[in-house]
């Protein structure tokens, strides 16, 4: 049976009121829930969200520091920062990247070889970031870009500070260069300091003094929107953003004399080799030239792959620093020091003379040691032996001294170990000894020291290998009659803001004190005779000098050509010629400059190397400056 219900107005109204009351409670509860949620977010968790919000809106933009400027000893700028144009590309504005890159290549704004590298570089960055794709554009490229700008969406021309070396290749091996930070660099560098800096010192002073030159980077917070682009700051809100000013790096004042460096490099033009000039009174390096040289600006502006390969594959090895890393037999240039050792150990007196018949035999041996002068020098004393560079005299002296005493004095004067010059990459060369032979060779028969090996050390041959820098510092010891300084390239730091100069004191090494200090003069006199005596080997190059030069020529034999070196047939003969050496200081009685010259495959020291030293002395001493 169906129960019939009729509408009960009173009941319905009561139900409605009841339900409304429940609903009102629910509404109130939910409103409190919402307010409570807001309280949780805005009061209890406010700090947390405030932090997140700050991180959201502010992006840190780097303010890279200005790299320290490098001056030569006379205050001429040899490494500076100049505004340069660079091309930057923003991927998201460029449309199709490959098309844009192809256009850039078509207009000659990037090279074919670099296309892939640039493409990878751009793709590795965020789409709204401006990626530098070509540094240091010259006027012609800037003009070319201006013409084609409208065809290159997303590509802009920006002005940035870039390293510039006004003297180009001159002094490049001392200065070194900066280059783009590589993957290897990234692992060793402090990322915070390099924030916003694209280059790092790679070689030479630029690398060794990186820490001083770099300075410290600053930053500023910029307001960004959600897409990561910076937006204009409304006025009055700037104080909400943090910033730190960058600190420019320290300027360097070098010991290098860029004019003298130029003289040296011009005199060496066309040769391979090395020239070092040192102020013996403090170790200041005035000239450090390795030829051929290269233009460091190429590296600073981002060297192209093709240009880099051209430098590394050049058989003349322009990137090889011969002054620091080239090791050569010192040849006859060490004869004065050998003579000094004979006097110091009292195995010979200056007036003792021998008869030179052009050859020397060890007692009980039939092996013949030849003099460079086939017919011999006749009767020679120490003075003559140095002046004429008599080999027989020094074979005999070396044998009398013995290897231990030779090794002792030569080590004290700096052979066999790096000189400690203030730029890196230096080699120590080899000062051989029985001890050294034991560690250098593995076969037992090779580890034995033969008396004949001592004999040829007397004329700077055999295993002996020295860098041009070692020859110069050893010669400086002779010039100062025993004073010894570590060679240096930087003599002062300059604060870029206050201009305060922080001079560095010379770095003396233990002086060499002879039992009889008069012996210095015996040796120096003989070296003066080399350039002025009747039979001196460097007389021709020294003729007409307004000052007295003390010098010594040398010739280092080239035994073989390194297997890794590639020469064509016509060059082989030239590459087998002896290296020409010359060490000298002037004025002989009060030396102001010590020079070591090495000309690879130059033949004789007297004809190839001595004239180069002469032109540097002339240029330097004619000034009358110290």
């Amino acid at each position, binding site marked *: 049976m169906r129960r019939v219900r009729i509408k009960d107005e009173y009941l*319905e109204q009561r139900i409605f009121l009841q*339900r409304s009351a429940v609903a009102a409670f629910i509404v109130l509860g939910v409103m409190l829930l919402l307010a409570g949620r807001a309280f949780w977010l*805005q009061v209890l968790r406010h700090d947390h969200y405030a932090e*997140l919000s700050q991180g*959201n809106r502010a992006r840190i933009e780097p303010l890279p520091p200005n790299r320290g400027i490098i001056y030569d000893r006379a205050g001429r700028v040899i490494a500076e920062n100049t505004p340069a144009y660079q091309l930057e590309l923003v991927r998201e504005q460029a449309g199709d990247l490959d098309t844009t890159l192809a256009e850039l290549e078509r207009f000659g704004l990037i090279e074919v070889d670099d296309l892939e590298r640039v493409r990878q570089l751009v793709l590795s960055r965020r789409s709204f970031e401006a990626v530098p794709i070509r540094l240091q554009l010259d006027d012609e490229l800037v003009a070319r870009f201006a013409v084609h700008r409208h065809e290159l969406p997303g590509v802009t021309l920006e002005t940035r500070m870039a390293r510039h070396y006004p003297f180009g290749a001159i002094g490049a091996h001392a200065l070194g260069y900066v280059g783009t930070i590589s993957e290897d660099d990234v692992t060793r560098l402090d990322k915070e300091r390099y924030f916003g800096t694209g280059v790092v010192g790679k070689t030479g002073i630029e690398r060794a003094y990186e820490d001083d030159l770099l300075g410290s980077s600053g930053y500023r917070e910029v307001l960004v929107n959600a897409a990561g682009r910076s937006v204009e700051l409304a006025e009055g809100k700037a104080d909400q953003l943090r910033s730190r000013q960058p600190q420019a790096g320290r300027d360097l004042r070098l010991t290098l004399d860029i004019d003298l460096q130029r003289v040296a490099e011009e005199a060496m033009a066309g040769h391979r080799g090395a020239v070092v000039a040192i102020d013996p009174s403090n170790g200041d390096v005035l000239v450090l030239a390795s030829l051929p040289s290269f233009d460091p600006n190429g590296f600073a502006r981002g060297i192209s792959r093709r240009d880099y390969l051209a430098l590394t594959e050049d058989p003349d090895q322009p990137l090889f620093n011969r002054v620091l890393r080239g090791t050569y037999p010192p040849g006859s240039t060490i004869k004065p020091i050998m003579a000094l050792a004979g006097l110091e150990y009292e195995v010979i007196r200056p007036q003792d003379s021998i008869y030179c018949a052009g050859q020397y035999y060890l007692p009980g041996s039939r092996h013949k040691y030849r003099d460079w002068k086939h017919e011999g020098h006749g009767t020679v004393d120490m003075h003559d032996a140095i002046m004429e560079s008599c080999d027989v005299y020094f074979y005999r002296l070396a044998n009398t001294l013995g290897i231990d005493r030779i090794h002792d004095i030569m080590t004290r004067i700096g052979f066999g170990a790096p000189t400690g010059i203030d730029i890196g990459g230096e080699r120590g060369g080899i000062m051989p000894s029985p001890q050294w032979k034991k560690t250098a060779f593995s076969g037992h028969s090779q580890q034995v020291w033969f008396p004949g090996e001592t004999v040829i050390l007397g004329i700077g041959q055999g295993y002996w290998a020295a860098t041009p820098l070692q020859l110069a510092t050893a010669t400086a010891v002779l010039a100062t009659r025993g004073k010894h300084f570590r060679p240096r390239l930087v003599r002062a730091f300059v604060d870029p803001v206050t201009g305060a100069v922080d001079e560095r004191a010379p770095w003396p090494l233990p002086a060499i004190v002879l039992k009889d200090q008069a012996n210095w003069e015996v040796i120096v006199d003989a070296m003066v005779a080399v350039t002025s005596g009747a039979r001196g080997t460097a007389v021709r190059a020294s003729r007409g000098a307004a000052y007295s030069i003390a010098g010594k020529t040398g010739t280092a034999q080239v035994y073989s050509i390194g297997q890794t070196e590639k020469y064509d047939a016509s060059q082989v003969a030239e590459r087998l010629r002896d290296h020409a050496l010359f060490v000298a200081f002037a004025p002989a009685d009060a030396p102001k400059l010590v020079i070591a010259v090495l000309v690879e495959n130059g033949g004789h020291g007297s004809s190839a190397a001595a004239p180069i030293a002469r032109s540097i002395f002339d240029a330097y001493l004619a000034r009358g400056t110290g």
Partner: protein
Amino acid sequence: MYEEFSASRTRRTVTATARLMRALHLDGMLLSGLAVVGIFGLFVLYSAAGDNTALWFSQVARFGIGFAVMIAIAQVPDHFIRMASPIAYVLGLVLLLLVAVAGDVGKGAQRWLDIGIIRFQPSEIMKLAVPMMCAWYLHQRPLPPSLWNVVAVLAMILVPVLLIAEEPDLGTALLVAAAGLLVVVLGGLPWTYMLGGVVIAGAAVPLVWSMLHDYQRQRILTLLDPQSDALGAGYHIIQSQIAIGSGGVFGKGWTNGSQAQLEFLPERSTDFIFAVIGEELGLLGLIALLAGYMFIVGRGMYMSTQCRDAFTRLLSGSIALTFFVYVFVNAGMVTGLLPVVGVPLPLVSYGGTSLVTLMAGFGMLMSLYSSRKLLGS
């Protein structure tokens, strides 16, 4: 003397206003509440719109239209509204079917119907047509409703809701369902049925889950762990909470919200404008807004209790409470209590259609309320 004169003039003015209100079938209290919240909303929208002042002026114009519609509908007698209920419902259903067949696609959803002069969303009509239909149906039957009546009403609700959810427009579907269900609940739906409904709904969760669109599922998953997809679907929630939380008690100041002004906050002038208030006006701003909403809901509910018959009571009660559901769903979403569902913040979010529907609803509420008073006078 003078003071007396002045005071009496004030009284006269008040009375004149009251008379005008009555003549226009308007409720002064509700109107004031709507106006205050609306002005507050325009004030916030000006900041949220940023440089886009055209957007702001267009919203002002929409408020004008909205109030006009409200006043117009308030003039419609209650019996006419009742008569129109089934017609509106059927018309809405037909339009929804038309949308499914020939609607315009916007933002990946088929919601719009272009009838030459204007484009509009038929689902908006249903926000009012469904509670009207439910109230109309229950009005003719004894309350509390029998099981059969409840099933019939649920069917009336479910058909349009499914059509809208299929567009897909989950937010509107939810609000339409809420509007209809509120009518049934206010009508006296037995608590046991409600409990049973909850159990059935719980059982249907897997089924509903399988019917949801991927983006809808993602929104629910994102609510549970926003950080799981911080740059995707979770981005909205994370950024809105950062905005609100960083506002603190007093806010960063009007137009100074960095989250909103720098576009970290998505949909800042529409669905997420609640976060702009939280960021720029702080906890105080949010509480002021919620208090405003409370006033409107409370006044609306009071008005519904004064109505003379079941139809007017149920419909007006549903309109008042649905407005509250709007607020809760939006604020809950923006503060991270509920999943991201596209529901605008009533009276504040930018957007024309929903505002006009809302004001039409309040117009109806006023009409129903005034019919009761007219009876009494």
